[in-house]
């Protein structure tokens, strides 16, 4: 079985977000970059499948050489090889097109993507890939099992969980639930050593796709005014504030 895990490289969860050039550029200064946490659940699931059923796991990223250290980490966790499509693209449509061009030349049974990245939160790439490649996709996937040649998936819907029987190939937009948080792996020393010799292929491309969507500016949320503290014996005061000041009750 061939499994592809699409990875985006995002600011660490605890990063303070700042912007420069009059709020038109994301400030990378002092920010640590990590595997998008939702992609990491997918990567771990792919490695579980590899260990239980046997599979070749490739990780794919669209980005600049700065992302290579994150790809090495994915190899250290257990992926077999990594591909980076060398590009500065930062819009979902372009990233998806570059990925689709690569995927078309290969055969994968399962293509994993996180359901969204924790920076831009667009959640667009898996659906775009699905349209571009005419491969069906399951969004917000929280469970994946095998039944003969079929896949049994569980995905979140607005009032519960939906269980589907799917053909391969399939695109899985995953999240926590595919594996649990405690299942996520920290690279071992041995993993880190072997990752150095695993292939990390860089593909250069000139097929940048222009998007008609442009970022005009970024904005930070308004600073909250100081929290109003209420004594635990005056709960009635809280209810009064919620009713008459905040007007939310």
């Amino acid at each position, binding site marked *: 079985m061939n499994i592809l895990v699409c990875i985006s490289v995002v600011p660490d969860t605890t990063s303070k977000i700042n912007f420069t050039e009059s709020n038109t550029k994301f400030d990378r200064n002092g920010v640590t970059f990590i595997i998008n946490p939702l992609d990491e659940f997918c990567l771990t699931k792919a490695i579980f499948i590899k260990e239980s059923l046997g599979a070749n796991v490739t990780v794919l990223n669209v980005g600049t050489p700065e992302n290579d250290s994150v790809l090495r980490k994915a190899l250290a966790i257990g992926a077999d090889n990594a591909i980076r499509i060398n590009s500065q693209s930062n819009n979902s449509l372009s990233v998806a097109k570059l990925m689709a061009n690569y995927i078309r030349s290969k055969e994968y049974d399962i293509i994993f993507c996180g359901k969204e990245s*924790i920076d831009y939160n667009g959640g667009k790439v898996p659906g775009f890939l*699905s349209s571009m490649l005419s491969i*069906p996709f399951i*969004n917000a996937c929280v469970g994946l099992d095998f039944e003969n040649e079929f896949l049994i998936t569980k995905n979140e819907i607005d009032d519960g969980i939906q269980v589907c029987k*799917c053909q391969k190939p399939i695109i899985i937009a995953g999240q926590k639930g595919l594996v649990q948080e405690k299942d996520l792996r920290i690279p071992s020393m041995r993993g880190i050593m072997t990752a150095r010799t695993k292939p990390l292929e860089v593909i250069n491309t000139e097929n940048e796709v222009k998007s*008609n969507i442009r970022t005009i500016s970024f904005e930070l949320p308004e600073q909250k005014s100081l929290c109003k503290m209420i004594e635990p014996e005056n709960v*009635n005061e809280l209810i009064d504030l919620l*009713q008459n000041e905040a007007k939310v009750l």
Partner: protein
Amino acid sequence: MSVIVFAETWNKKFKKSSFEAVSYASEVAKNMDLKTIAIVVGGSEDLKTLEKYGANKILSIDNIELEKLNNNQLSKLIINIFLKNNGKTLILSNTNRGKNINSQLAYEIKADLITNAIATPKNYNPIHIKCKAFSSKAFILYECKSEKNVISILPNSIGLQENLVTSEIENFSEETIEDNTINIIEKQKNSNQISLTDADIVISGGRGLKGPENWTMIEELANLLNAGTACSKPVSDMNWRPHSEHVGQTGIAINPNLYIAIGISGAIQHLAGVSSSKKIVVINTDPEAPFFKAADYGIIGDAFEVVPKMIEEIKKIKNL
């Protein structure tokens, strides 16, 4: 041309987010000098209510059950109707179902896709829209230059604007596209009555509640306020509560009018899912809990004393 809105139903009823999408669409249509057309798949008991939010025309496809369509079949169905009605802008909610189809829709109709929109456009030619990003730590203002666009709006962020019109209702049948790649075999409904993304008020509990048996008071408070119930990550990891209630970075993101956090310290991963709530109340025994910095109202105190008092006070104002 027209502004088309997909008015989602759950068990043949509209949820608040569908009304929100229709009122958003009618605001956009007004500014573009176009008509608003609402698409309803599988019929609805309360079709007429869309009038109140400005749907000039309601297209109700009665022969197809929404729940039985996979995302591919649903997006193809909507694309057909969008093209037949000469659509310019397509509006939908960024609910799970919306997210299942929005990128396929945008790609097929060659439209710009904006997800997580939190306001109506600031400018119409070209369109400028503000969206949530960086897990609620920032906003982005986007410009879209394509002739067509798909706007997926964050539930609970715009609110309901009434705009009464007289709707023309058209009931008809459509063919479903054959698609065996994904077969829905089962649905497991959540036990909670109120959908978290739709709820105006959410009561959330953390490890400070000490055990799943102590959720009775959370549920009682939620019932009184017609609120949804949520929990922090450790609580769902320990299986005190189902994963569907986990709000935060790896759970779901919500933005209710009021979020009451009980016994939750407020780690940054938790805030990522709730910080865009309009008002936040934090109840925690630890005065150093970081959540107080993100809160509007705080009580340093024991949940087991404060929550029963809240229940009592709310019963008073509700005359119960």
